[in-house]
């Protein structure tokens, strides 16, 4: 694998998951040792595994301490200036300002707690802090994943100034669109090899996607109008909050619709607003034609027949230390119970046993603790929990993330059954293969809006990758078929 980055250039590094981007970065960072080959810095041969290079890394998770001030966060990396063994606070503040000014970026008050900064300012601080160690090259790993569009633009501005000051930037991103107009050169990796190195000016977004996937691509520009069901199960109009929207779409009874986007695109927020877990800033949600009051909480939405399977299994689904019975029937709303009506152990056990048998959960012992189960079996239990709620609309976040292939197919089969039974399913996912395999239709979210809609033969993994990657760009016009 080769990668050449010139001085004072922004170099994009792209490729699908597993193409080798992370491995390359880890070798540069000295985490892994290279099996063969060499790394040269300014022409000199260096060994990143032994010596530390003047390279800095900014990861998606910036590693900032929100409770501490900007100056302290800089000093945590750069070291605290001392005088007579004690921290020299005036110099801590001054130093933070200097580092910002060296990059021609207006510094914030260094005494401000980091928690008070905007997402973009935090990302900038992450970069500034990385440069505090006299780095020549900064490696940015998906820095804009969680940034809304104006913030991303601000960050790009900072990167351009950084380039002007002579630093080089290696920019790893899945959002191909935003690379155009930002990066100077691009290296595409596939299956651990470099398949293209080119100047950005000489390449089109479609060529980039084809290089990433390794096959030619016929982009289906989905120009379908929003489908008008005679009586849609769910109708969302101009729904928005700070992270997503405004979006409008409909789901018919028996339909499985994917809501796809790259990490941080805002698609999770849309599902959560429908479930009542996030409060929308505006817009309407209608279920079966009935307008749902905006202030309703989760309990009220469950009562109306909306269910949500959270994506974070460990933190938001699992009830650790509790039995499978309790995990399947955790609340009155789900068990179809009243709060003060006695739970009959024998009946609950039979009910839980029936679900475990139907979903083929191992072990099939209702008294087993949830902690004893593997991830895939746990997920089956959580899917089973919501099936017990007999909802009309299921919002499923990453329904099969991190589970083995057998359980994945089993859960897909279950969801298809549920849809055949007349419920609507909204699959909120960044797993393109899953969406292509499971959904009837997919809405692609880029930068908080619906950028395209794919269906029928056009709903393929390649198309999803293309639309999500290109359509997500700040400066991209290509590939997107207009906001929803």
């Amino acid at each position, binding site marked *: 694998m080769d990668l050449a980055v010139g001085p004072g250039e922004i170099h994009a590094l792209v490729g699908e998951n597993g193409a080798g981007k992370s491995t390359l970065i880890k070798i540069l960072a000295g985490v892994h040792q290279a099996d063969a080959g060499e790394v040269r810095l300014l022409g000199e041969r260096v060994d990143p595994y032994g010596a530390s290079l003047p390279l800095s890394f900014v990861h998606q998770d910036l590693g900032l301490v929100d409770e501490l001030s900007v100056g302290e966060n800089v000093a945590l990396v750069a070291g605290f200036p001392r005088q007579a063994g004690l921290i020299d606070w005036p110099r801590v503040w001054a130093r933070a300002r200097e580092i910002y000014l060296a990059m021609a970026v207006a510094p914030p008050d260094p005494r401000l707690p980091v928690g008070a900064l905007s997402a973009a300012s935090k990302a900038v601080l992450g970069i500034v802090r990385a440069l505090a160690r006299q780095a020549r090259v900064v490696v940015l790993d998906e820095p804009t994943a969680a940034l809304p569009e104006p913030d991303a633009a601000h960050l790009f501005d900072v990167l351009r100034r950084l380039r002007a000051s002579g630093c080089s930037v290696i920019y790893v991103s899945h959002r191909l669109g935003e690379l155009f107009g930002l990066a100077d050169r691009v290296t595409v990796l596939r299956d651990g090899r470099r398949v293209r190195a080119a100047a950005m000016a000489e390449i089109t977004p479609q060529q980039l996607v084809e290089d990433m996937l390794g096959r030619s691509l016929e982009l289906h520009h989905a120009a379908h109008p929003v489908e008008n069901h005679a009586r849609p199960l769910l109708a969302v109009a101009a729904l928005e909050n700070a992270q997503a929207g405004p979006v409008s779409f409909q789901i018919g009874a028996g339909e499985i619709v994917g809501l796809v986007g790259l990490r941080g695109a805002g698609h999770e927020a849309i599902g959560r607003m429908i*479930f009542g*877990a996030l409060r929308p800033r505006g817009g309407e949600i209608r279920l079966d034609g009935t307008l749902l009051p905006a202030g309703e*909480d*989760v*309990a009220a*939405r*469950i*009562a109306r027949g909306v269910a*949500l399977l*959270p994506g974070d299994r460990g*933190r*938001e*689904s*699992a*009830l*650790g*230390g*509790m039995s499978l019975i*309790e995990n399947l*029937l*955790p*609340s*009155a*709303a*789900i*068990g179809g*119970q*009243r*709060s*003060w*009506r*006695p*739970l009959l*152990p024998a009946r609950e056990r039979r009910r839980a046993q029936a679900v475990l048998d139907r979903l083929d959960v*191992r*072990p*099939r*012992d209702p008294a*087993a*603790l949830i*902690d*004893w*189960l*593997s991830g*895939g*079996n746990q997920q089956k239990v959580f899917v089973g929990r919501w099936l017990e709620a007999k909802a009309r609309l299921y919002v499923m976040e990453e329904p099969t993330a991190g589970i*083995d292939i*057998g*359980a994945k197919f089993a859960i897909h089969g279950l969801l298809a059954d549920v849809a055949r039974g007349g419920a609507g399913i909204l699959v909120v996912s960044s797993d393109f293969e899953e969406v292509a395999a499971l959904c009837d239709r997919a809405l692609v979210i880029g930068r908080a809006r619906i950028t395209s809609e794919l269906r029928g033969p056009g709903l393929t993994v390649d198309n999803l990758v293309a639309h999500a990657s290109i359509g997500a760009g700040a400066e991209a016009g290509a590939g997107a078929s207009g906001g929803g």
Partner: protein
Amino acid sequence: MDEQVSTNERLADTAAARPHASGRLADLTAVYGLAVVFVLVMVVFGILRPNSFFSTMNMNAVLVGQSVTAMLALAEMVPLATRQFDLSVGFHLGMAHVLMIGLQVQQNLSWPAAAAIVLAVALLVGALNGILITRFGIDSFIATMGLGTLLYGVSNWYSGGAQITGLNLPASFANLTEVIGYIPLPAVYVAIVAVILWVVTERLPVGRALYVIGASPRAAELLGIRTKLYIGGAFVTSGLLSGIAGIMLASILGTGTPSVGPEYLLPAFASTLLGATSIHPGRVNVIGTLLAVLILAFSFSGVQQLGAAFYVQYFFNGGILIVAVGLSVYAAARRRALAAAGAGKAGAAD
């Protein structure tokens, strides 16, 4: 086809059953551990002091004396089910019993009127705790400690810091906690409350919601459980039961002493946590709590009869608290290890 499926299932079942079988003995000792300890305590001291230990007088003295602790332990249990601490129960108990005596002596109220006021105040105290924690987001440890200390101030202010002697209290008030035949009434009150709490925590969706919140507040919210309402309710219940405990204590003592109360917190707390090591290991529960109170009470009474000094009770309560929490931490770690082994084996069977 059918043949094959059943073979596969058998394989999977045996693989999944293995960790379970090895965990079963550990489970049994965990579930019935406290009951066994209780029987051991009774047998050992029964043999060492056969005449005095099992005497009606000793039994009644322990049961009457410990009923207040038991009531307070049950009060503590409810918020603890949601993993929230209530450190105000001891101070609250003190204030309730001072008010109970004082309202009769200083304000010349009848005891039912005084009791009604004490219970209303108890509900208010619980609601205040709940509001501080759920509305203002103050950590339960801090909120209840702060409010508890305020209550301690109130009882000292009300009594002027001096003991209120209930010289002319009606007999009907003292009779609230008398022993009828072989049955001490305070123990009956505890039993009634325990039965109600048992039904709520073990057999009603309301109780399950409390444990679900304790397991994961975030998951509970996404399951449609109104966590703030439940946590608030848990503190109101805890306040009410602390008030009842205060009325019982007033009837037993016949005087109101403003310095009484705080020393009840630790035994109640220790019992609840010790109770969580058994019956439903890893979660606070009614039967475990009661067993723990009885074990602490009878073993201390036994040690006393063997001639231990009064200060031994502090070693006892402090030691038990550490041992109980240590045991439950150890049991949880063991169960996690077993679970990991179980998940590994069940995973291998997939």
